[in-house]
């Protein structure tokens, strides 16, 4: 086995190893783990389709209400998908919001879809994307069906 082939072997192993990808992903908050003060009262969704958790007294805790709603949400990297006032029991209310990156090179991105009045259909996506490390003010549309928030960002309603 030549030196080149040995390198190829390691490269193949590196590409196929799930740990390499996992290392690049941010750590998802989990119930019982600590959360910083800046995230106090913020909610997040630890994984797709999981129940939300809330940062309470420095610890991530499960939400005890069946209808979680908050003016502060955390997206820790992957898409956090919520629904708004176009559906029963919204997770967030419409209005003015501010997305604040939690890292210097973090970009916040929001993709919203609103209900088309009179039809059980949603309209095209409205995308807001900030600059790396810079806060992003934006409007949550009035009859929001769903919003996908991504980036390591804290999302706060500013007109509450």
């Amino acid at each position, binding site marked *: 086995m030549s030196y080149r082939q040995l390198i190829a072997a390691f490269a193949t192993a590196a590409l196929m190893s799930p740990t390499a990808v996992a290392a690049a992903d941010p750590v998802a908050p989990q119930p019982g783990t600590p959360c910083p003060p800046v995230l106090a009262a913020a909610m997040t969704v630890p994984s797709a*389709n999981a129940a939300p958790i809330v940062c309470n007294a420095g610890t991530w805790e499960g939400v005890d209400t*069946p209808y979680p709603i908050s003016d502060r949400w955390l997206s820790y990297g992957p898409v956090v998908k919520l629904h708004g006032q176009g559906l029963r029991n919204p997770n967030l209310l419409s209005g003015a919001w501010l997305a604040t990156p939690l890292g210097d090179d973090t970009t916040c991105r929001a993709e919203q879809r609103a209900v088309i009045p*009179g039809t059980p*259909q949603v309209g095209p996506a409205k995308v807001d994307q900030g600059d790396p490390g810079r806060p992003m003010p934006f409007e949550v549309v009035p009859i929001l069906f769903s919003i996908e928030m991504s980036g390591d960002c804290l999302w706060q309603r500013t007109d509450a």
Partner: protein
Amino acid sequence: MGAATYIGRVGALAVALGVGTAVATGHGVARADETSAGSSSASSSSTDGSGGPAGASTGPAKDTPGKDTSSGDSTKDTASQDAASKDTASTDSTKDTDSTTTSSTTATSSASNATTPRSSTTTSKTVAEGVVVSSQTNTGSSAANSTTETPDAPKLQPPAAEPEVSVVEPDAEEPDPTEPAASTPEVSTPQKNSKPNDPKPTASVAVPGGTVATIGVVEDVETTDASARSESKTLSDSKTRTEKVPEVTAATALGVVAVAAKSAATAQASIVDVPQAVPVTVAPRNPLDALSSLASSVVNWVLSPLIGRPVAPATPPLAWSLLAFARREFDNFVAAVTGRATETPVVTVDTTSLSLAAATTALAQAAVNVPGFPLPGAQLSPSTQFVQWVTGNYQTGNPLIADTFNRFGITGTDVGVIWDNGMVDDPSTPYNEHQVLMAFGDTFSGANMTGNWRFNVLLRSADTVLSDGMTIPDGEWFNGNMFGGTPLGGETYARQIIHPDGLPAGITLIPTAGIALPTPGTQFGVTQYVNFMSVSNWGAAGTWSTNYSAIAYSTDNGENWTVAPESVRYNQPWSGNNNFQQGAFVRPGDGYVYSYGTPNGRQGAAYVSRVLEKDILDVGKYEYYSKGTAGFFGIGATPAGWYKNNPAAATPIFGQDTGACGVANPGNQVSEMSVQYNKQLKKYVVLHADQFNNIVMRTSDTPQGTWSSAKVLMTQQSGGIYAPMMHPWSPSTMGTGSDLYWNLSLYSQYNVMLMKTDLTKT
């Protein structure tokens, strides 16, 4: 020489790929679980085929008769058996051949989690100002009935003009409809236009609305036929059920629950592991396999560094091999002592396993997929029990209960207002025309409110035995049958029934009440009415805004609906119509329909109005109940009574306690509600949720009250409960028992459950 070079390169590449694969997959651990050659393939084969003996076909058997054909249920009366067998017959009439195709399609759809099982034929067009109106597609259409209406629903005969002006006039002389069954037991009997030539022996049952439900006695030939079909379909159904994969939802992972497929009593359930492992026997174990496995692990451990595996965990292969070896030896020892088979699948099928095929088939048949909470049969309060799911992508063991994704494209929905359709069974037809209709709110094909969305849908049921759940027949696609499980927009896709029809566009149209009234001369002699609200905006939990409420009607058993413009109540506080944005209907039999109302959201009180049956669509003909006002030192005082065409005169009849203690009383606010006359209690009964999300019950001697204080039937449950909708065929409602059945929505699963309350324990 050149060939040798290539061989060397190929070998090196193989080593390289092997290393990569080993690093990526952690083969050492995997090997530690192997006990014999080929066991890995045995595992996958067994999983894919669901245990081989149980069969490998997929999807639900569309025509499995389900519970009703089992007969022999001593708790059923004649009428119920008739209804049940009719239900089965209806189901059996179609879909004998397409189960495999359907299931394969839906399995894929389920995996994608947001698709339609079958294409919908509903079309949309923009008519004006951006208002989109979807045209309705007839389920079953008119193939078998030339008089079936086209998408424009048939108009009712306009109610006789009654030029009364709005007069504030307490109606003190009119008798209160106390105990309607006694005072007016039979107002009218809905009759179909044509009667069969061969009338069967019938049993008459007075329904709460004062009508008489004439129910045919079960015919032996039908029962026998249905039973035979049931038996013939059982095996195929059991085969298909083994393929179902639990679907993970937002809050609760689905458990696999083993439930007796048919039990006269409440279904008993127990959680077992996921997936549905089929226990099989283990082939006699060769001791040399374990030794060779151990030796292999040791060799791998020694040689691993030499093949370029730098920092792979060196200890796990050997350690796990030893642990696995010890565990398997222990399992085998236990199995040998106890005689039980282990759950380890094997690839070889020896002759001795044939006798187990029947056993595994039985287990597969009993295996079902329902959420882990609540479990069917769970006692959620001293008086109230969760019976079974009404809707959801759940396989309960009976293909006619829930399983609404495969059959109707419904994975999630809510509300489920339920009423008697007022029809009489025609013994000459293979299906039962006497049904309950259920109207649901926002409906989605995918989990977690994804996929194809409908504002509302309708389901039907003729099941009179509710103790083991409520069966809903499959849909009837384009064959003229309007008594299938739902109005269809595709072969297995429930379509939206109520559309804006040019009214102000909201973001959904949610049914809040339903009732059937006799209308001689119409297609079935009876018309269905649904009160609904147009939601303009959802707020925080329990709050929302509405544009208006209105009534839609259908003369073809709910296939096609028309919104009556004269029934619209805009959400205007100055008009008083704001207190009638959600509704509940009750028909005591005194000639009036009593229409209850609450404001938008769940923070208001309840009010009541009434209208002559023939005027139900005309909001100007309603009378509103006021408890009376004291005025200012008697000036301007008004007596208690009914006030015509003056919604603002209505005063709260319950749900508005005051004072420091009053606001903390159960039932202080009124959410979605339902009202019935309960023959067992000889009182009117209302169920609603309160400010604590308790489900509470009140009773009254008259529709307007005085209503009792609220009794808590069950407190808030994990996941969020709302919209208690009473079943009109509950034994207590019919006066034949003490049980009260009702639909209840669970938000976390976003589906509707069937509940049972023993009124002797409230």
